[in-house]
């Protein structure tokens, strides 16, 4: 077991932490940030585990995947933030209406 796994575990931690925040916080900005924290966890895990064999160069494919993922995350975040502002203009608050329990 090397320190690589430590990073990967931190990634798992970030993922669940983000999931918790996403469920608990009603404010949309927090939800968007929570999604980003989750995403960072996934990217961290993806990149960290690419360097498991000691003494070799890290695997470039997960790096490329993480870059792709980051660009997707930026795009999604920008869209979400713009949508959040529209929701706030339209409803007066940046929260989703309460879910009627079924």
């Amino acid at each position, binding site marked *: 077991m090397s320190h690589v796994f430590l990073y990967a575990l931190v990634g798992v931690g970030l993922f669940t932490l983000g999931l918790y925040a996403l469920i608990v916080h009603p404010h949309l900005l927090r939800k968007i940030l929570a999604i980003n924290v989750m995403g960072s966890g996934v990217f961290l895990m*993806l990149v960290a*585990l690419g360097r498991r064999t000691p003494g070799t160069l890290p695997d470039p*494919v*997960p790096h490329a995947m993480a870059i792709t993922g980051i660009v997707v995350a930026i795009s999604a975040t920008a869209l979400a933030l713009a*949508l959040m502002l529209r*929701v706030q203009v339209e409803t007066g608050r940046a929260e989703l209406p309460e*879910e009627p329990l079924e």
Partner: protein
Amino acid sequence: MPALIFDIHWQAIVILLPLAGAIACFLWPQRGVQLGLISALGIVACVAALGWQVLELGAQRYAVGGWGAPLGIDLYADGLSLLMLIVTAVVGLGISVYSSGYFNQDRARHFWPLWMFLWAALNALFLSADIFNLYVSLELMGLAAVALVALTKGADALTGAMRYLLVSLLGSLFFLLGVALLYHSFGSVDIALLAERMEPSPAVWAAMGLMSAGLLLKTALFPLHFWLPPAHASAPAPVSALMSALVVKASFYILLRLWLEIFPLTNAALAQFLGLLGAAAVLWGGLQALRQTRLKLLIAYSTVAQIGYLFLAFPLASIIGWKGALYILLSHAAAKAAMFMAAGNILHFGGHDRIADLDRVVQRLPLSITAFALAGVSIMGLPPSGGFIGKWLLLEAAIRSAQWWWGIILILGGLLSAAWVFKVIGYAFTPAEVPHEARVVPATMEWAALAMALVAILLGLFTSWPLALMDIGLPFAGEGDG
């Protein structure tokens, strides 16, 4: 001549063409409608050519960049992906024609590039043989879908779109974490290679759970359906049609590929669980649909129910069962597109979609109501229609595998659908207290709705061809003899 056609890389072209269309529609928004319709026709022609190629030469693997898996990305077209491409092309063409009359100039210039991006994403998704590439196409599809839903301004649409966006991103992240685990377990993201190298391990179980959960959320299987009705109902009519007909099916398609190829269905308990959720979705969606007072919400809840049918095939796990589910998927795509289009016409005509105030709309919009009724026939599963064939195949699979109780769900679901279809049709004949403030509905919008409904009916009359397509490349071969 055929040899020449078979040499062309149609798989690449059906992805590049909508992308080029999106760019063109974005650059010249004044010509958006024309450019969009030309692209739509082009895509349909190219999908037809790809279909011919696959029919003649069998399933096609295409190594993008010439590298081949695992280094590069592969595209793969077998009967299953071809069928999805064809249904996307048919419904997409209908929606394009409908939209050319639906949107005003201001909204049209946003609609067309977004719709072309969505089409590109769908084609890319159905052709991809690489799970990381599937993640990218999923995101492309999700963001396009969210922006399209938000084209209707107003609180309902915006909050619906916002919730949809969060759900969609969450689902994608679950999927991506699964992809990461699979890549680091087997050193590849190619579906065929993963299937070859697959051996059970905790990481594989985790990946399977994460990816399935993410995709179930995106497919809106009960009880993860909470986001679907508001998003689908508040979107503009052609967008609602796109969402219900195609977008939710895309994540189901990925789920199907994963379960059939990467994670072989050895876990019977999990399959039974998915079947139970499907059954619950059929009943719950049907009951909720019956309770709605707004037409578009009603249709959206019926989508929740119809998604449930697709999951009844998991516990049956036989070739006939899969074919039945796929047949329901195809006919639901056409029928639900027709229904949302008809609802859009009614909304355009009368300015509202309150079911109780439909006010003899049958006299004013006979074509749209006919389309609604014909689509209803397929949704209920009455012969002759695609919905009937799908349910029949599922029933046969249920009886053959001695799990007759799933048959009861099929029948109950059909009765519930019948109840709400007749309720709507009934109100369409009844005069209401508030008369309509009538606006003229363009003929293209009426005929597009009718054409989609006829596709759903014709699927019940010409069954051999779609069923034969499903056998190309034997996508269901791993699933016993049925």
